[in-house]
């Protein structure tokens, strides 16, 4: 089977004034892959991700996302991606059910689809007793799992996760990653930025950004071999130390 690439970036750059936030990055992400996008603070990973989501216009380069051109077909891209930001992205004053209905609604799902999705998610996340409680009453870990499920409620080709597990305990993080594996098995490509190196190990492939450039891109095992390290932590430190930019 030929690997199908859902994200292809070629020489993508973003320049703010004199500052080159993202410097000619090129990479491909295959369908269903869990692609880890690592880098120290200020390395440019969030900017790169925002470009791929259509939130920010690239200064130069080429890219296709879900088979659509990043410059010409942003509307098509928007329909085929899901996004979960660093900031927690559900409406706190809405119930779980209403949040699912809202996001299903703005992605144009039919009433029937929304009903089925809601039933499935409530069951899958074991939220039966809470479906009509306001989101603000839920613990953070639950909110994040729910936010992820809502981000893929319309079965997008790709889901972008921007540091999705900030501030939660390792157990919840592990559960969160089980949801990510589920999504990947259903053919959804997962593009994830993270600070946690244990999470980097869960990815199929990892890219590490330093000063706006991609310094390394491979499977976690190959990276460890290349950099002669025992863990991703070590790999990351070896690469990130080269950074000229501060935080």
């Amino acid at each position: 089977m030929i690997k199908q690439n859902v994200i292809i970036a070629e020489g993508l750059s973003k320049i703010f004034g004199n500052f080159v936030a993202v410097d000619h990055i090129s990479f491909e992400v295959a369908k269903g892959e869990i692609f880890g996008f690592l880098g120290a603070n200020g390395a440019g990973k969030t900017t790169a991700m925002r470009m791929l989501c259509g939130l920010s216009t690239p200064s130069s380069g080429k890219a296709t996302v879900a088979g659509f051109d990043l410059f010409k077909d942003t509307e098509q891209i928007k329909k085929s991606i899901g996004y979960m930001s660093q900031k927690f992205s559900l409406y706190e004053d809405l119930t779980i059910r209403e949040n699912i209905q809202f996001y299903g609604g703005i992605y144009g799902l039919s009433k029937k689809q929304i009903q089925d999705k809601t039933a499935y998610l409530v069951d899958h996340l074991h939220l039966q007793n809470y479906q009509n409680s306001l989101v603000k009453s839920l613990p953070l870990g639950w909110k994040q799992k729910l936010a992820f499920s809502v981000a893929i409620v319309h079965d997008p080709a790709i889901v972008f996760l921007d540091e999705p597990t900030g501030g939660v305990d390792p157990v919840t993080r592990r559960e969160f990653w089980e949801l990510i594996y589920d999504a990947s098995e259903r053919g959804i490509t997962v593009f994830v930025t993270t600070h946690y190196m244990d999470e980097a190990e869960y990815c199929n492939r990892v890219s590490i950004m330093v000063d706006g450039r991609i310094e390394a891109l491979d499977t976690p095992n190959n990276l460890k071999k290349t950099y002669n390290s025992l863990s991703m932590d070590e790999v990351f430190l070896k690469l990130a130390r080269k950074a000229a930019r501060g935080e």
Partner: protein
Amino acid sequence: MKQFFAFVKKEFFHIWRDKRTLFILLGMPITQIIIFGFALTNEVKNSKMAILDFSKDAASSQLVQKMSVSKYFDATTVLTSYQEVLPVFKKGKVKMILVIPQHFANDLQHGNQGHIQLICDGSDPNVANTLSTYASAIIKDFQSAIVKEQKLPYRIETDIRMMYNPELKGAYSFVPGVMALILMLTSAMMTSIAIVKEKEMGTMEIILVSPLRPFGVVIAKAIPYMILSMVNVATILLLSVYVLDVPIRGSLLLLLSEGLLFTITSLALGLLISSITDSQQVAMLISLMGLFLPTTVLSGYMFPIENMPLPLQVMSNLVPAKWFYSIVKTIMIKGLGLSYVWKETLILIGMTVFLFGLSIKKFKTRLS
């Protein structure tokens, strides 16, 4: 379209969940109308008055009697000498003193000339002015009654009539003003806060990544507040007709359409505010300082624009509320039709189109 309604529905949930704000929004017109209609009235009723009557004859007591039965004055204090005048004012016991000199009846009958002195507490010039006008009117009335009785050949009568507002009711100018104020507040401030809140919460990013078009997002956010504003217009009109006895002399349909137009103008302003700031506090401050203040001060309903210095008069033309206030007054109080307010209406439409254009342009599709 379905996406759009999903969004509008969500907005209603936000408003509905925040019961306190909803309560304030719907209660504000009621309290404002009550406050402006009853407490802040510039009519003067039952003002305390002192009498200094040196003649104590039939004519003088008749005049005192006439004054104190009127609803404007309450003769509460009787003085006996001029020495008591200052202390009474200093204590703030009375607003006006009626001084009747000696031989009042005699002078009237034989000299055909009576003198009366009114001393008013000028520390509140508006009240003093009103009181002296009322008192003079009563005295004139008294005088003409005497003249009639005695069938003398001449009589002086001044007939003052107030057009549109014969009783000079304050509510006639407050109702249109309150309407402008409330619409400005609910539409502009609440919309700007609602949009900025999404930015603060981080949900705006998610929405911008979604296939919803920015224009749709903006309209969907505004619709619930438009509906709320129209409820407020209805409340204000009902209260003014049934509680304050302010009539709607012109076409109700025209009045409501103009209300809707002004609501849209305010919404456009709210959108513009939300596009220049990312914090709810700033949005609220800009709304209060930038909208509330000019609306109260420069729209003409509290202070007459004609009396302002020229630069302020010119500035007042930029305040949408000024035009709306004039439209509502013309339709509601004067009972005139569109042919008298088309100019103001066109100006409002122009402002609305301009503001909407500007805010849509500023509302960034891409947050870069």
